[in-house]
């Protein structure tokens, strides 16, 4: 595998794992907070 494709694959893997998990954390933080709020309201 050439150096370029190796780096590209590494970048894709990092972006799709680390990047995705941080984005999911952000979305879940919003959702979790809303669920907590709803439960408190009830």
């Amino acid at each position, binding site marked *: 595998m050439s150096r370029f494709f190796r780096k590209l694959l*590494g970048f894709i893997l990092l972006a799709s794992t680390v990047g995705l998990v*941080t984005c999911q954390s952000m979305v879940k933080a919003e959702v979790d907070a809303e669920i907590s709020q709803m439960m408190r309201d009830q």
Partner: protein
Amino acid sequence: MEQLPLFKSAKAFSGDSLRYSSVRGLLLHLLTLGLIPAVIIGFIKGHVGSILINSAGFGLYCLSAMLLRKGLAAENPNRQHRLQAPSRWPFKLLAALLVAVTTGLLAFFSAHQAIEVAVIYALGALLGMYLSYGFDQRQTVKLADAQGYSGEEIRQTLAAAFETIKTIEQANRKILNRELNQRLNTICGIAEGVIAELEADPRGIRRARKFLNIYLDSVQQVVEGYAKTHIQAAPAELEQNFKTALDTIESAFQEQRQKLLE
């Protein structure tokens, strides 16, 4: 004589500054920026769990990025670095493992993924780190035994000599006189040439040890002393004495190099 103006903030360019300002390894910082709004949302909505998990994740990613950049900086392929003993810590491997663990923990605790999915995330991140940056290459130059000295002793002597040259070059950057800078660069170039020749053929090590251990240390002391005095205000007599000393040093270094070539 050509005197440079005294701009205190201006620094001569060196490869070291470029090395430390390299953008390699910044990708991790970029990818983890999403955790900052996650922590802020946690604060706004008063969700303690979200604040703790996401801020811990962000901290661990930052630590990984620091380790990674340290590992990348240690890979500079110049001769001095090749002669130095490898670092005790495999920084790049540690960074990759930390990224993998943090990604797995965040996927499980923060993104609420199943444990199997979190493990896949962790393995993906580990593979991504390996493919992007590789792991640490812990190898140094292997030198042959010569003149009763082991290859390791010779490597240590040459690495120490390179360290001294680096200190001389640092002191040279503090001297704001182009003529003296050029002469010191020439002297450092000759010394590096001697080391390169010894690395290629260490049989002259016995003859060169005095040069590497005593001459270079003396030059370091003289140059550092002058650099300190020069910042305060060097009288013309001191400058002349320094120039005479540089003449002597340069001819002694040339002579030493010539002896090694014979």
